[in-house]
């Protein structure tokens, strides 16, 4: 309960636009939960409502079972980075963290700790205005970790980072979750979460499209298909079709089989004395799975192109 972010039936309207439309999901402790959706899907609005910055029209967001605004030292319950550029350019990184620590009575030693943790030691005494995007992201993450909170929330943390920075953040998120924290990470690119997230909440137009584990999602998208390589494609297809599999010729020497598990395919081919050089389960990428999921939403949007976004 301590380390969960829970969203229940959140709804938020900005003028004529329904930004968030009855959203419910949970970011559980010990997991990196990816919060994915196209730009304008309502991710940032949802995060602001979780932080008590925007007032929901309906529904509630709970951090460790309590509304954020009822927390006395909220930085110790939920650390958040909404916008890495949210720092006064003339203020030194260390001072930026100092005022934040003061606001929740967090001991001063913690400022030094998060500076080291975020790898900002060499630039901590420089004005934040001169920071590169990557350093600002690190400063934002340091700020989020200030209260050593059991729940963390990052809005597009790897957006615009170089591969090294992406790898660092991915590793950091994994290690934070491994400590038992709930980590909610938003992104508009599924590929950014590949290998980073355990659980996915996919939203489009303010609604949850999918709320599932990454493994399940990939399995579903892979659809139990198997890639088979064989020099004798014709015989292989005949033998497998006789066993009830759906067989499709792919490229030369390759066949895609569905409807039969891989072990059974091997048995059938061995029994029929059909030679094969390779057999592998077809693995969909997260991006493929995501495209599959959001196709409807995207089509819907394309169909009503006149509507303001």
């Amino acid at each position, binding site marked *: 309960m301590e380390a969960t972010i829970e969203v229940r039936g959140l709804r938020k309207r900005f003028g004529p636009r329904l930004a968030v439309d009855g959203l419910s999901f949970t970011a559980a*402790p010990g997991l990196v939960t990816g919060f994915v959706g196209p730009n304008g899907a309502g991710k940032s609005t949802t995060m*602001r409502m979780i932080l*008590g910055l*925007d007032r929901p029209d309906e529904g509630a967001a709970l951090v460790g079972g309590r509304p954020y605004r009822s927390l006395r030292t909220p930085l110790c319950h939920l650390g958040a980075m909404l916008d890495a*550029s*949210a720092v006064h350019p*003339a203020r*030194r990184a260390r*001072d930026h963290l100092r005022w934040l620590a003061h606001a929740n009575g967090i001991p001063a030693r913690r400022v030094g700790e998060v500076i080291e943790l975020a790898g900002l030691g060499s630039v901590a005494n420089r004005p934040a205005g001169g920071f590169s995007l990557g350093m600002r992201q690190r400063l934002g993450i340091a700020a989020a970790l200030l209260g050593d909170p059991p729940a963390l929330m990052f809005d597009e943390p790897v957006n615009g980072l170089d591969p090294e920075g992406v790898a660092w953040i991915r590793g950091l998120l994994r290690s934070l979750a491994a400590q038992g924290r709930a980590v909610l990470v938003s992104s508009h690119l599924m590929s950014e979460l590949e290998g980073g997230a355990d659980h996915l909440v996919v939203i489009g137009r303010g609604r949850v499209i999918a709320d599932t584990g990454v493994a399940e999602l990939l399995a579903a998208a892979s659809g139990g298909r198997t890639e088979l390589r064989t020099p004798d494609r014709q015989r292989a297809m005949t033998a497998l079709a006789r066993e009830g599999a759906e067989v499709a010729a792919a490229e030369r020497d390759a066949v895609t089989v569905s409807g039969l598990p891989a072990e059974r395919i091997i048995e059938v081919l061995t029994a029929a004395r059909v030679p094969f050089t390779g057999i592998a389960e077809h693995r969909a990428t997260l991006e493929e799975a995501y495209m599959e999921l959001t196709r409807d939403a995207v089509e819907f949007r394309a169909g009503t192109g006149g509507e303001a976004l």
Partner: protein
Amino acid sequence: MTAPYRSTVLADARDGFGRLLAAEWTKLATVPRWRLALAASVLLTVAVAVLTAAGSQTTGGGGPPARLRPLSDQGRITYQMLPGDGALTARVTAQGGGGGWAKAGLIIRADLRPGTPYAAIAVTPGHGVRLLSGYRDGGPGGAPGTPPAWLRLTRAGTTVTGYASPDGRTWRRVGAVELDAPGPAAAGLFVAAPDRVEVQRQFGGESISGTPADTRASFDNVTLTAAGGAPVTGPWRDRGGAGGPAAPDPGGTTRTGGTVTLAGSGDIGPDAFADDVTRTTLTGALVGQAAIVALAVLFVTAEYRRATIRLTLAASPRRGRVLAAKATVVGLAVLAAGLAAAFGSLLAARPVLRAHGTEPPPLTDPAVLRAAVGTAVLMAVVAVLGVATATILRRGAPAITLVLLVLLVPQIVATGLPVAAARWLQRLTPAAGFAVQHTVRRYDTPIGAFAGLGVLCLYTAAALAAAAWLLRRRDA
């Protein structure tokens, strides 16, 4: 699955208003240009004070020392020395000229030096019979008493009591004043009248030209008795005007039989047209205030511009407290800067004023202290107004413009309006706060020092309440 994580700093963390003050103070102190703005406000204020002092000119050189309670002690007096207690009675038979506050009556004063404490009773054409003292207009009385009218002053110890009578038999007590002048005192008849003053006001300034107003009055049945009723004998002496190039006609005294006729000009009373040296010296606050307003506004709007307001409100979800902490921190920082600016101005201007022939009033005088400390408080309240306005508008340029307009426009417009309209303008707008800089009551003083500051505080409180309401209600 791993066990849920527990924060290692939660046990040490505390909330509370003191923490918020520390957070806001850290924010203010860690942006170098904001520290510069505070320093600039002090330097600008002092610089303007020195420039103003250097621009002051006293004609004739070595002019009179600036008085904190500017007064006029002229008119015509004819008197005898009264050794101790006693009574002075006379009938005013006629009075002419000099306007509504022309005075004809009796006076007792320790000596004839200008500015000496006195007690007097006089008939005035516009304000009835008045017991006068302390170089103030007004005083007890006010019942109509047109000549011929009997007047009496009695002196017992330090108390002087005034009486009036239509016929010299039934006396009405008008009032009593304390006159702390032991020993012999001058007691006699006097006439006085305020100068006819023309004030020309145009945008940005005023020019005052005064011409002496002549007044005359006749008295008879003059009796001066010492304690026990014995008549005081001695020569009657006269005192005319104070002399000098602008001094009124000394007038004259004529005695025919029992009738004494006095003619004179100049007033024994307040000088409503004197320069307020302290206030002029503190004018620089108007300029320093621009830096203060910019600082106070940007302290808030920079948070909106950089979106750090979301960090601030996420760290402290009780938004009313956040606003209170911001206002307190900016207010206190500006109060400190304001004290430095006000006392710095008065100190820096002193040698310059002296070099230009004006003796500046002492810093230890209560009115000067009030003006100096008041200027600092004024700047602090203006800063809080800036914080509130910035929270309402959330954008720097409009908020700075609005606050400066609201403070400056009434003062600029007022110089071009008729006095009555100008006074109301400076009573009802936030510019009323500048009244706290007055050390001298003048003809155009719109409102008392503390009342004026109170008006500004009311506006600020209203803006702060609106800001708190909006901050709580709006999405960040």
